């Protein structure tokens, strides 16, 4: 334990030291100017709404220097004294030029005007037009809410997670399955942050829709590789979702009425230009129709979510943001059964500008996922609860040292609690007794330091180190497990912990590196390496994760999951950034991956660890991406060729086999055609190799029941048929009229246009009428085409 503490301390000490070393006094001569330097800093915003423009850029052409606005719209650019023309730009917005004579540091807030209606609908994923080529980021994809809303949506519900699945390297185990898989990783290996709070279950309705209300989402960024040191805790990706700040200029209303749900968002200034808020709500209303059927009147089935955010500027240097999310899925079958689940998150942030070059974001956050199910009353009455909670404090500094160097450093402390399951009777006469699984607690401390540095116009690197320390601080009796791997183990070596010594303690160093080398103005080569560590594990043994799956911390037996990933990419833009193209290859290895013995019981199992197995995952692949940004037809094409396999000690005779979500080929094509200012058409096409599954090669009859068997107990020896699907949509806006603020539009969409019965899974059963006969059955989640109409409005 000595060493990691040393590293943590060293990191924390190194940051201020780095600051001291590079403090602007005394001015040192640099190559570009003898008497550096003054700093221009400030916030970049949307003129119409006051929303911060994340990733907008400022550029001084004559010096070839630039800076990018951070997640809060703050930028800082240091340069020699003199007179310069600054160009501020953001895709979809008119560039703004400002000429300043600088004889000292100053702040400059800039508001950019969105371009006309037509370009408003242009797909925007890069911030600066050539961001993809110039940045050091690899494996990064961005979507904004406009894109998400224009892509044809299942049942008209614009969806963040479904849109992400159209990007290279992102797939799913099946349509309608919870979550997503990035570069061959599991669904629990994505760090999904909503305004910096982790979201533990991203799905409504078992996975059909994601929990994020598109009206409240400003920006979505997915990082598949080269993840910066500021982020940790999951192996495979970072999905960073930023909520809208709310319109600081005037009252705004947006909403929609759809087949599944309706949405309404209200945003308004608190004090004009100083603060604003947004409240966005969404609710499905299938249950409203249920209630019309007399026999169903006691039944409920709906989901809702509420997103809230407010921000306030306390002065030039200080801003606070408060955001919250609360979502829930509710099912109730009269007195027979009830089940509900959901996420709740809350974030309070304080931005402080220490000076023109040092920016702090301090965050306090809490997040929870919980579910409840049971029989509400009577002799069979019980209530079963489970939850995971975390409370976290973070400080993230950004130090804009020189135009060539930006330092990021900070730390976080998180406290977790886990209640894997607690059953209690609802009344004294219930047949059930109370059962409480071992509660667990954990703390995680992390610190990081990284530098973004450019060496001339060609080479830029971002390198950093993260130290993370996880302690399982549960109290109670814990066991080791002995026995043959692959069979249920026996608990041995009981050890009792009263709260002093941690049950288990793990420290890890996580180096991160990404580099870009510009070959020409329009093309670059990039490379990255990252090590990621994960101390939270989703225990799920079903094809698609269920809302009842439980998160557990690292324990004596469950070791921290670790991933090493390298990726290489070639990025090239054509025709003045009208086309973006890239080819990336990646390879990664994951260790301490969790799996389950045959017949494992993952729910309410007091001896769960007796059913767990551990092993490795390896994944590699090529991702090809081409995107067209300009003109009437926009869209992208993404193709992934990859392999994701696992080798588990105790399964499949310890040999490698394909992961259940492995897809060799995965193609998506998205096209958007702006026919006129009022009418837009869009289409998506998906093709993928079928997922892998296990099929029996024999059967035996036991007491009249036909039981499948596979010789040698091999896993995933078969592929379900290939998947493909075409979706179409058209969006028609109402006629613009002078002086009318109401904007309305209709979106018509058809999901699965040629009504293909895509196989979600294959399963095997006895024929109900002739029990001796067995048959294979294909399950299609959507057996037909699904048309929908949605009316969206904004005011």
């Amino acid at each position: 334990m000595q060493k990691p503490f040393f590293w943590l301390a060293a990191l924390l000490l190194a940051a201020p030291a780095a600051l001291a070393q590079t403090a602007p006094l005394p001015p040192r001569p640099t190559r570009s100017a003898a008497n550096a330097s003054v700093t221009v800093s400030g916030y970049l915003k949307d003129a119409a709404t006051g929303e911060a423009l994340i990733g907008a850029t400022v550029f001084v052409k004559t010096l070839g220097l630039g800076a990018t606005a951070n997640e809060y719209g703050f930028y800082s650019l240091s340069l020699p004294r003199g007179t310069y023309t600054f160009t501020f730009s953001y895709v979809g917005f008119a560039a703004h030029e400002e000429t300043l004579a600088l004889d000292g540091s100053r702040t400059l807030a800039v508001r950019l005007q969105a371009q006309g209606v037509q370009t408003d609908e242009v797909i925007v994923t890069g911030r600066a037009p050539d961001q993809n080529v110039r940045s050091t980021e690899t494996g990064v994809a961005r979507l904004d809410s406009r894109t998400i809303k224009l892509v044809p949506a299942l049942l008209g519900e614009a969806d963040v997670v479904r849109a992400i699945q159209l990007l290279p390297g992102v797939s799913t185990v099946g349509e309608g399955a919870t979550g997503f898989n990035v570069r061959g990783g599991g669904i629990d290996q994505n760090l999904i942050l909503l305004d910096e709070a982790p979201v533990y279950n991203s799905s409504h309705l078992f996975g059909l829709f994601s929990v994020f209300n598109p009206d409240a989402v400003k920006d979505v960024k997915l990082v598949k590789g080269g993840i910066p040191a500021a982020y940790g805790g999951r192996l495979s990706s970072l999905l960073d979702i930023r909520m809208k700040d709310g319109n600081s200029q005037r009252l705004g209303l947006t909403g929609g009425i759809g087949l599944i749900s309706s949405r309404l968002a209200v945003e308004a200034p608190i004090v004009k230009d100083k603060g604003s808020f947004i409240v966005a709500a969404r609710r499905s209303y299938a249950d409203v129709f249920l209630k019309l059927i007399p026999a169903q009147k006691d039944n409920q089935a709906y989901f809702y979510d509420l997103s809230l955010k407010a921000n306030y500027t306390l002065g030039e240097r200080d801003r606070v943001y408060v955001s919250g999310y609360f979502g829930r899925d509710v099912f109730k079958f009269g007195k027979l059964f009830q089940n509900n689940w959901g996420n709740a998150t809350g974030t309070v942030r304080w931005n402080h500008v220490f000076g023109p070059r040092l920016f702090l974001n301090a965050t306090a956050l809490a997040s929870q996922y919980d579910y409840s199910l049971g029989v509400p009353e009577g002799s069979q009455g019980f209530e079963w609860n489970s939850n995971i909670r975390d409370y976290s404090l973070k400080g993230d500094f950004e130090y804009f040292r020189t135009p060539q160097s930006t330092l990021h450093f900070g730390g976080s402390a998180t406290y977790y609690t886990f209640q894997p399951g607690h059953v209690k009777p609802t009344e004294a006469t219930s047949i059930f007794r109370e059962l409480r699984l071992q509660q667990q607690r954990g703390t995680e401390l992390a610190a990081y330091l990284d530098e973004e540095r450019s060496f001339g116009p060609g080479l830029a690197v971002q390198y950093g180190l993260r130290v993370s320390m996880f302690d399982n601080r549960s109290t109670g009796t814990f066991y080791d497990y002995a026995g043959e791997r692959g069979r249920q183990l026996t608990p041995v070596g009981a050890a009792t912990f009263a709260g002093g010594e941690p049950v288990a303690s793990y420290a890890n160093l996580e180096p991160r590196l990404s580099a870009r080398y510009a070959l020409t103005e329009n093309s670059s080569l990039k490379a990255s390496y990252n090590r990621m560590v994960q101390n939270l594990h989703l225990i799920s043994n079903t094809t698609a994760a269920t809302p009842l799956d439980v998160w557990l911390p690292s324990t004596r037996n469950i070791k921290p999951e670790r991933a090493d990933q390298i990726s290489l990419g070639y990025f090239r833009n054509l025709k003045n950034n009208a086309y973006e193209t890239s080819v990336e290859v990646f390879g990664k290895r994951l260790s301490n991956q969790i799996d389950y013995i045959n017949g494992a019981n993952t729910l309410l199992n007091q001896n769960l660890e007796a059913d767990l197995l551990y092993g490795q995952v390896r994944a590699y692949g090529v991702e090809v991406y081409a995107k067209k940004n300009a003109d009437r037809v926009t869209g992208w094409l993404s193709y992934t060729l990859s392999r994701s396999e696992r080798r588990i000690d105790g399964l499949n005779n310890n040999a490698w086999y394909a992961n259940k979500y492995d897809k060799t080929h995965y193609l998506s094509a998205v096209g958007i055609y702006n026919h006129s200012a009022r009418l837009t058409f869009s289409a998506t096409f998906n093709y993928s190799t079928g997922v892998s599954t296990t099929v029996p090669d024999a059967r035996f009859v036991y007491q009249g029941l036909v039981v499948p068997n596979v010789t040698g107990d091999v896993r995933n020896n078969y592929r379900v048929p290939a998947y493909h699907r075409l979706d179409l949509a058209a969006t028609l806006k109402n006629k613009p009229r002078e002086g009318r603020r109401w904007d309305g539009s209709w979106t018509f969409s058809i999901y699965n246009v040629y009504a293909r019965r895509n196989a979600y899974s294959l399963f095997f059963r006895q024929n109900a009428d002739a029990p001796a006969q067995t048959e294979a059955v294909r399950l299609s989640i959507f057996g037909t085409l699904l048309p929908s109409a949605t009316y969206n409005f904004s005011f």
Partner: protein
Amino acid sequence: MNRITTAVLLLLATGGLSSCLDVVQLDLPQGQPLLVVEGQITDQPTPPIVLLSSTQAYFDGATPPPVRGATLTLRDELGGTDALRETAPGRYVGSGALRGRIGGHYTLTVVADGQTYRAETDLRRTPPIDSLQVKLKTGDPVFDDGYYVFYNGPEPAGVGDYYRFKVFKNGALLNQPEDLIVRSDELVDGRYIGDVELNNKPFVRGDQLRVELNSIPADYFYFLNEVTTQINNQGLFATSPANVRTNVKNVAGAAGKAAVGYFAGFTVRADSVVIR
């Protein structure tokens, strides 16, 4: 309880949408035939019975080929022993020299096709059935109108009891995959088990029902539970298909041929009711 949950989740996830099921033709590989053991020893006067057959190709709906001419020996922990005699092809029956006894531990040895297998099981304590109750349901939002049978009985204190419920309608065991019901006492230990519904589909007037309660060993519970999972393994939340466990072990270990199935000891308590 997990089963109810799964069933409801399944219903919600797939029933509400336009999901669909199609029987499809698949070309499956065929594994080599393995010995199948289906054996039981109970606390009833009937002698132990073991059926031996062979695995088949998955889509082969023919009667499983019996395994004939095997040598079966049964022993208990007190040194009692019995040789099972083949009374019909693949059907081996004890002489009556060894009967099941609560608390007894039994070892079956099977020599077939040059391989020797061994299976061990126990007979565990059992509670009695108190009563069966028939209730008429009408207008229920979930259940069809008709008669339903409910189980009432005590559950002995101390976790670690496992049960199987069998329902015989007019003398025939209800034996569709969804009819296999096994339960653990983990959540109901020591409580009085009342009002436990035994059928999903309604009975009609005149039906004669016999309900059997089997107290089963833990490992057999896991076996049956795994069978339930595998033969009802469908829907959005299906588990990864996997072989069910067996207590029939080749004495040669991994070097010998594997076997499937189970030799189980269990008690039998029964009660009957006629719906009027």
